[in-house]
């Protein structure tokens, strides 16, 4: 099958604290807040002073009214004893900074500014939907953060960013195996072939050999 068994597909693992770092920078999106909270609790136990060198940028979504009122936690995302509202617990920790955001672009703008003034010795933790992790990793790569400085846990949606290899348009929030390119109108097959530089999976024309003949379109990235 064309879309499986590809090595570039990112692999994620549950986040754990890396106390060898001197500074900790954490990005969370929605249910990712639960994973960050778990890492922060680990740090609090093993190296309490590290919390004072930890900055958290968090996008609690969906936000309804007051920011702390509602944080969506998907049922399968965390352990049974996961807190219903990680935000309240995050706010209770003695962090160097906890900053809340209403959108991914705003969070990433602040993230970039923070990297500009960060020092060697920083560890990056990212928790949230796969497309959010990808966009954060793309920026981290520009700052030459290596694999041994970054940890990521996928929590939430598996919806993909898909790059059309024909017209170079990128589609967001793709949930189906086949998607129509918003740039050139071609039907694209979504592969597991992933570009860290583009933070997107590759989409290739699905009916190039037999125009109009498409596999069944199914929701696979949910």
């Amino acid at each position, binding site marked *: 099958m064309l879309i499986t068994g590809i090595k570039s597909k990112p692999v994620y693992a549950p986040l754990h604290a890396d106390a060898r*770092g001197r500074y900790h920078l954490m990005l969370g999106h929605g249910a990712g807040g639960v994973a960050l909270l778990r890492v922060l609790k680990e740090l609090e136990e093993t190296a309490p002073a590290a919390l004072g060198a930890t900055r958290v940028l968090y996008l609690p979504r969906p936000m309804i009214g007051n920011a702390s009122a509602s944080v969506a936690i998907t049922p399968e995302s965390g352990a049974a004893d996961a807190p219903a509202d990680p935000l309240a617990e995050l706010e209770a920790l003695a962090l160097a900074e906890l900053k809340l955001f209403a959108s991914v672009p705003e969070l990433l703008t602040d993230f970039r500014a923070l990297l500009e003034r*960060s*020092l*060697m010795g920083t*560890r990056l933790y990212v928790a949230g939907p796969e497309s959010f992790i990808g966009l954060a990793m793309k920026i981290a790569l520009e700052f*030459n953060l*290596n*694999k*041994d400085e970054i940890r990521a846990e996928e929590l939430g949606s598996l919806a993909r960013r898909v790059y059309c290899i024909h017209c170079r348009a990128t589609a967001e929030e793709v949930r189906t195996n086949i998607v129509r390119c918003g740039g050139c109108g071609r039907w694209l097959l979504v592969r597991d072939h992933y570009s860290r530089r583009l933070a997107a999976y590759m989409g290739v024309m699905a009916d190039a050999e037999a125009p109009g003949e498409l596999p069944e379109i199914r929701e696979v990235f949910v």
Partner: protein
Amino acid sequence: MSDAQTLAVEVKAIEAVTPLIKHFTLAAIDGGALPAFSGGSHIVVVMKGATRVHRNPYSLLSSPRELDTYEIGVRRMEESRGGSHYMHDAVKVGSRIEIAHPVNLFALDKIARKHLLMAGGVGITPFMAMLEDLHGGAVPYELHYSVRAPEHAAFLPRLEAREAGRVRMYYDSENQAIDFEGLLSRQPLGTHVYVCGPAAMINRVIATAQHCGWSDSHIHSEQFSAPPVGDAFDVFLARSGLKVHVPHDQSLMESIEAAGVEVPYLCRGGVCGFCLTKVLELDGELVHNDHYLSEAERAKGKHIMPCVSRARCRHLVLDL
């Protein structure tokens, strides 16, 4: 690498640049271009002495863009087993010597956002070529160069002419020391540190960087160990069916080579891992002197790096 793949070069110039370091300029005998290399590369010089063959690694310090000649710096080692003394005393202008092709085990990270270079003594040599690669580029860099006293600062005029403002000198004689913690605790994200010098300096830089939270992928070091002397012992080579005596002042690799068996090598300094050899039988203990095998691998005792490591044993069989 083996001797079949060496190049013959002629010594074009020799200059004593410090009381202990001689600077050699080498050119291809046919006058043609030498193989290309990148900053941080070394060559192995094959020295055919009266009683034995020495093969020592030396960093290339000339510009990677000028391939008419290679330049190396050789420090006279107090406890030399002969290699550095041979280069200092027996090699003259016009001498012909054999060298192995350049190999780079100490390369610059191509996507670093800043390079922090730290040299101790003759450890300056790989940085001379790296600086040629970095000069004029967009990525910032700085060199911290520590020597025992001003007369020991090899290649300083060349550095001052090209790298003014990017080189900071430290003289032990003036009680000046590199502030490792101060430097390593305030580097921007994406910095890589490179250290070459005495073992104590290398260990200090690695430990301080880790203490400052640096991840290993940003820490680079190179130290070629001269093969240490030790007790004499015998080794049996299973595939060749040979018994070889290893004298106290000759390395295991040199002894095997002297018996006519080629061991593949790149660095001969315990760094690259190329000469990794299986230990088939052992009654005694291995003396690991390399920088390649992990603690766990050493504990298993199944492999040895014959370029620098030895054994204290009654019986040793290698898969050679």
